[in-house]
């Protein structure tokens, strides 16, 4: 979910990250509601597309993404494998919190390989309203912690705004995300894998079409991102994917996409499953 979050250095940046988190937490407290969706209809960033909808995981639900997998291949032949186990919990009405632990394996060819954690991702997501004649609106904040051999050197925080608008023929989502902190010196080859994945900003649109009797969602997206690393050009990305409800608790997703511009054009595929369960409850 936070794979492309931009970051900022420790110290001042950590303070900014905490500030961003507190904004979300504060708004959650003012508006007593949170939710996160656990089914095929509730998309999550990266599952399978980067652009997500404005609805959280349901309150009191746990969504476990055990091993969502993503493979990228750049034009230069570098393979980037990543698995990011995630756990989201609907902690309040219309609000969920999430933690992700991405693990990457890079094969640059000629026997050059490396692997390790690319950071620890923490985030909070708060939906402001259910869609009426007003689109559904959500805000999110997250931080990438410098944990792992491939993680960025500093913590980086980001904020995000999300809109979802549903028409009878399709559903549209608009996401805009900004990462605090100064841009990193050097290109992709001079910064860690975790830092190279960070974006100064991301903006994009996704459209999906639901086949409700088959519990199937088909989506497409276009988004732009500016890498945090200086020297990397603006990237335009596009992708398509689907989400499918296997049974009331399991859903799976898969997607394929292409980085159209930027320093390293390439393609990616992704595949994952999610399992939903609730917390025990007693009167």
């Amino acid at each position, binding site marked *: 979910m936070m794979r492309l979050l931009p970051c900022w250095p420790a110290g001042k940046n950590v303070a900014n990250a905490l500030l961003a988190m507190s904004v979300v937490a504060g708004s959650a407290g003012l508006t007593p509601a949170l939710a996160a969706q656990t089914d095929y209809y509730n998309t999550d960033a990266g599952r399978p597309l980067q652009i997500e909808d404005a609805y959280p995981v349901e309150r009191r639900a746990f969504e476990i993404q055990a091993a969502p997998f993503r493979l990228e291949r750049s034009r230069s032949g570098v393979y980037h494998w990543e698995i990011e186990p995630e756990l989201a919990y609907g902690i309040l009405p219309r609000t969920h919190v999430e933690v992700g632990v991405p693990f990457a394996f890079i094969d640059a060819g000629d026997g050059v390989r490396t692997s390790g954690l690319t950071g620890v991702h923490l985030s909070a997501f708060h939906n402001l309203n259910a869609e009426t004649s007003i689109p559904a609106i959500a805000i999110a904040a997250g931080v990438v912690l410098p944990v792992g051999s491939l993680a960025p050197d500093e913590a980086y925080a980001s904020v995000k705004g999300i809109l979802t608008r549903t028409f009878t023929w399709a559903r549209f989502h608009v996401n805009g995300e900004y990462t605090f902190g100064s841009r990193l010196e050097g290109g992709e080859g001079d910064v860690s894998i975790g830092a190279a994945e960070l974006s100064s900003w991301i903006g994009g649109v996704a459209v999906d079409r639901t086949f*409700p009797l088959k519990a199937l969602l088909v989506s497409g997206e276009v988004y732009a991102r500016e890498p945090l690393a200086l020297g990397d050009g603006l990237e*335009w990305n596009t992708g398509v994917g689907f989400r499918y409800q296997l049974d009331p608790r399991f859903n799976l997703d898969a997607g394929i996409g292409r980085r159209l511009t930027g320093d390293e054009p390439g393609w990616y595929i992704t595949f994952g499953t999610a399992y939903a369960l609730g917390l025990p409850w007693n*009167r």
Partner: protein
Amino acid sequence: MIRILSRGSATRAAALGLGLMMAGAPDANAQWSTTHEQFYLQAPHNWTFRNRHQAADRLFNAFDYGHAILYETLWTQPNAPASALEEKEYDNLTKKVLVKPPRVPLEEAAIEIAYARLAPEAKTMFEWAHILHRQIYDVLASDRLSEQEKDAEVARLLAYYKSRPDVAFSSHPKSMELMQEQPYSLAFRQKYPKFNGLIWGYHWLQVGLYEPLLVYTTPESRQAGVRATVARFWQMLDEPPRKMPHQMPMTAAVAPTFASRYPEAAIIFDNLHSMHDVISDILANPEVPRDRKRAEILRAAQLYRDDVSYVMPVQAWLTMSEEMGIENMGGPAVDFLTDLPTPTVSYGAVMQHDAQTGRMTGMKTGEMTGAMAGKDHSGMAADSASRDSMAGMDHSRMNMPPAQDTGRRTMDHAAMGHGAMPGMDSSSMATMIAMHMRMMADTGMRRHVLADTVLRRMMLEMMPAMPDAHRDQMEQMMRDTLAYPVPGRRTSQPAQQPRAKPPAKPPVKAPPKPDPHAGHKPPGVR
């Protein structure tokens, strides 16, 4: 070409996207809605009903589609001919969706897209109550829970349900006045009788399926009972709307064992089904302007949530449920005869009831039909203990509607007294009674008579005229029949009494394999 896109292009693209998102957005009536979803109660019995009774469970998924497409059609096609629902969508539902129902619960927001935007609060109320519905099936379908544990789990489910007062229906019974005597009422059933009957059929099965799960005690008998009840639902679709329920199925009538054991849940489900009808009426009634639909829906939702509006005592709710007539609601959900009972009121008739006693006071719309038409019930003894829906009905106090309401003459019950049967001498009567006694000496026949509400009512009406000895004998036989357990069926309520020895482990015998086609009988197949 894409390479030449700059940051400025990205900004313009983002602006375009935002413009699209906001298109047609906030008008004067837009309201900020903060309703939200909540996960079902996590428990070991989750999805037991789905695993044990697959066909019935999938049928409920199809029911969700039916409700959703109904609201979406009513809201998005206000000027469509009645055939859009009565023929096109009805045929799609009964010939496709119900025949091959979805395998997982549906995301209704993806079906009732415009309606979900109109009133997300009402949508959430329905979903929260449907979750309760399904979780109680899970509890009752479980072979691992003892009777006491089932009661405890249902109580826990109810508490969890009520922990969301923003979306929970009241567990106090509401009078039918709230459902069918509002300015917008009856629009749906009058314009779309087939579809309305289908919805009532849905509601009959949704509450009726609790009965076989409760009254049968073994996995095999529960499986067979569920199949029979599902098959009964299909039977209602044979001749729409003639064989469909003519009144909203009341849980206390259709599922008396369930309502007796879990009255709060039964009341919640009656309120749920009642509000389904209300929303249909609001959406279908052109006299409610489109810019008032949301406000009216939210008003009704509030009235169904609070514990004070249109509330009647529980005993009055039971009486009202009886007096509406189970034969008018599709009949009982277990122990039914081959044929569906004959309704005693015209389709969609509106009975009026005293809010404090539940006793019927008149008919606002519609009429009595068949055996009940023109009958003088003024001398009928009140017998609230009887399950006979019409017992105790005092039609002499009915405020029959004026001619313009029903298209019928006002009935003069006082002039319709029944005396001795004309043309029958005493020897014929004696022979008739002897034949009756001989027939009723048969246990199977007594069960059939007691299970058929019309026959049962006729017998009860006849008994006061019988010789004392015969009447005493008949009463004794009836008591014996009611007390004599049908194999595999529970006749008492052991829920409050601990078992002498709770089962130490689950039954060794594997539960019967669910039949994916269990109970399916597509329309037209006899």
